[in-house]
């Protein structure tokens, strides 16, 4: 299996006032194609910093980082932008969708900045990505017309649309209730089953159990790395969970009028 991410001795120092904060103190790890990895750790453990470095949003202070076989340590700002655009997909805790912009336009946004024009029909690709996350019927909805889970699905579609080497998700379930969290994890599991490499950061152990491998960080170092032998199945769990709609509203004749379109 070829490695999608390979880091060697990555460090990251921040200067805060006169103090130097050593957020990463030498991180070595590898993610191969098709993996589904969770990075766990307490706040301040360096997991978000690592995410920013892996996502080419931030440059490491030292160390080597190979993404999809390319050394990306010494690239320019524009080259970083191109890598984010063509090889990475992002999912954020707060969805980060453009307000007052339809789901379809939001998903198409990365292709708008694709200077290589390698994807021929951006609109069709965006529709396809939304279909993959189960939102084929919400193309024209704007974020404020969608539930939190739906917004996160749109964000996942946006991360998918440029056919990235890996999807990076930073606390993707952090803003969602537990049922919607499992729902989003089922989307990720589906995508992973289709061969897409996913790396997510979370501090919720039960969310991490839906992945195939868990890396634990503390004080800027990796202190644990273990496979998940008994992976939880999000779809199955979802069926077992009570749905508020099912409980109270399905039989109510006014149900249709109460649910958002």
């Amino acid at each position, binding site marked *: 299996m070829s490695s999608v991410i390979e880091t060697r001795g990555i460090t990251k120092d921040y200067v805060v006032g006169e103090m130097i904060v050593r957020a990463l103190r030498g991180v070595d790890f590898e993610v191969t194609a098709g993996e589904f990895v969770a990075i766990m750790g307490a706040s301040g453990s360096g997991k978000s910093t690592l995410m*920013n470095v892996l*996502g080419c*949003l931030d440059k490491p202070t030292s160390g080597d980082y190979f993404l999809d076989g390319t050394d990306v340590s010494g690239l320019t*700002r*524009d080259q970083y932008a*191109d890598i984010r*655009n*063509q090889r990475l997909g992002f999912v954020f805790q707060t969805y980060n969708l*453009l307000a007052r912009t339809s789901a379809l336009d939001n998903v198409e946004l990365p292709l708008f900045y694709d200077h290589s024009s390698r994807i021929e029909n951006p609109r069709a690709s965006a529709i396809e990505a939304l279909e993959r996350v189960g939102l084929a019927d919400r193309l024209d909805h704007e974020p404020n017309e969608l539930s939190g889970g739906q917004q996160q699905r749109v964000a996942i579609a946006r991360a998918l649309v*440029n056919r990235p080497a890996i999807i990076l998700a930073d606390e993707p379930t952090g803003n969602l209730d537990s049922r919607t969290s499992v729902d989003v994890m089922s989307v990720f599991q589906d995508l992973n089953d289709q061969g897409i490499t996913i790396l997510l950061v979370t501090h919720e152990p039960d969310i991490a159990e839906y992945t195939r491998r868990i890396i634990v960080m503390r004080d800027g170092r990796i202190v644990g790395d273990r496979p998940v032998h008994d992976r939880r199945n999000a779809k199955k769990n979802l069926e077992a969970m009570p749905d508020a709609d099912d409980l109270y509203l399905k039989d109510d004749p006014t149900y249709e009028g109460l649910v958002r379109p």
Partner: protein
Amino acid sequence: MRRLRRLLRAATRSILKNRMRSLLTSLGVIIGVAAVIVMVGIGAGAQADVEAQISSLGVNSIIIFPERGHSANVSLAAGTQNKLTLDDARRVEEEATLLSGVSPVVRTNAQIVGGSGNWNTHVYGVSPAYLDIRAWKIASGELFTERDVRVKAKVALLGKTIVDELFDGEDPIGEQIRVGKTPFKVIGTLSEKGQSPWGSDYDDVVLVPVTTGLYRLAGGRYISMINVGARSLDESDAAIEEVTEILRNSHRLQPGEEDGFRIYSQADLMETATETQRVMTLLLGAVAAVSLIVGGIGIMNIMLVSVTERTREIGIRLAVGARSSDVLAQFLTESVVLSLIGGAIGTALAYTVTHILNNVVGMTTVVRPSVVFLAFGFAGAIGVFFGYYPARKAALLNPIDALRHE
């Protein structure tokens, strides 16, 4: 091309999302563009007025003055070449071929008494051809004749101002007036001509036969000037050369000797007058342009606020792979589109205002398409200039900080 279209679409979408704010942002440019077009229109209108006025006074008129104060010139021969005489005027009239008329002019100032008052004014001794040369018209009565000139007849034509001052605007024909101590009979009045481009009153004048003016009033041998008319404006320069030649011969000047007289054509004077107006127009335009620049600062202001407000949006765009140049182009396009929309509304406003000025207020304004294009182009340039700094600020944001921005 496709990229430009997408940029334009994104810019218009973002502008339409904030209609009210976009309108307020453009307001400065709207007013600026309208001010430039209207101000320059008013200036150009005044210029057109002056031009019309001057040409109504005879564009082809050429005036020959004797040169004064030439004492330092050693080549001066003793004699009369530094003065103009009736003889000079007669020779020009006989020999010139490119002229429509020739009139010697004797100019004096005199106190005139008649009717109900007295008045100090200019008395011009001229020949009958003078009125045609200057494109002056008789309002009532008639012009004096060649015979009147020969016999030094004591007859006079009065300008509108004199009629008003001495006769309270009533018909003075047949009345007696005194010019200095000499009694004259009023045989006609001149129609109103208004002010000269440099402010003197063309109607404050009395016309008498040139001989009468020369011998009875000025009491001298020399005339003040010769006023001739070229047959057409195009032949003006040739006519000036011809008159120069005739006068040099008349004064028996050797080649190399100074003319001793100076020639002005109405065309020159018109150029001077329109030049003055042009400076005025430029000044008005410059003042208005300042307001356009202030409008540009307004755009910069709002764009800066907009960049701060939309920091998170910029962060999202950067995170999904927008290059700095993409963000720069986006914000720059937005500010240029904003100022061009302002320019368009401003132009429409300017046309409305000039329409009102022309048809309701009764002013003359001339809106030239070139000025509209210039103002429009200037508005676009202002969009680029004042949009650049905010756009650059947006483009150089750090994606992580921008995403964290609340």
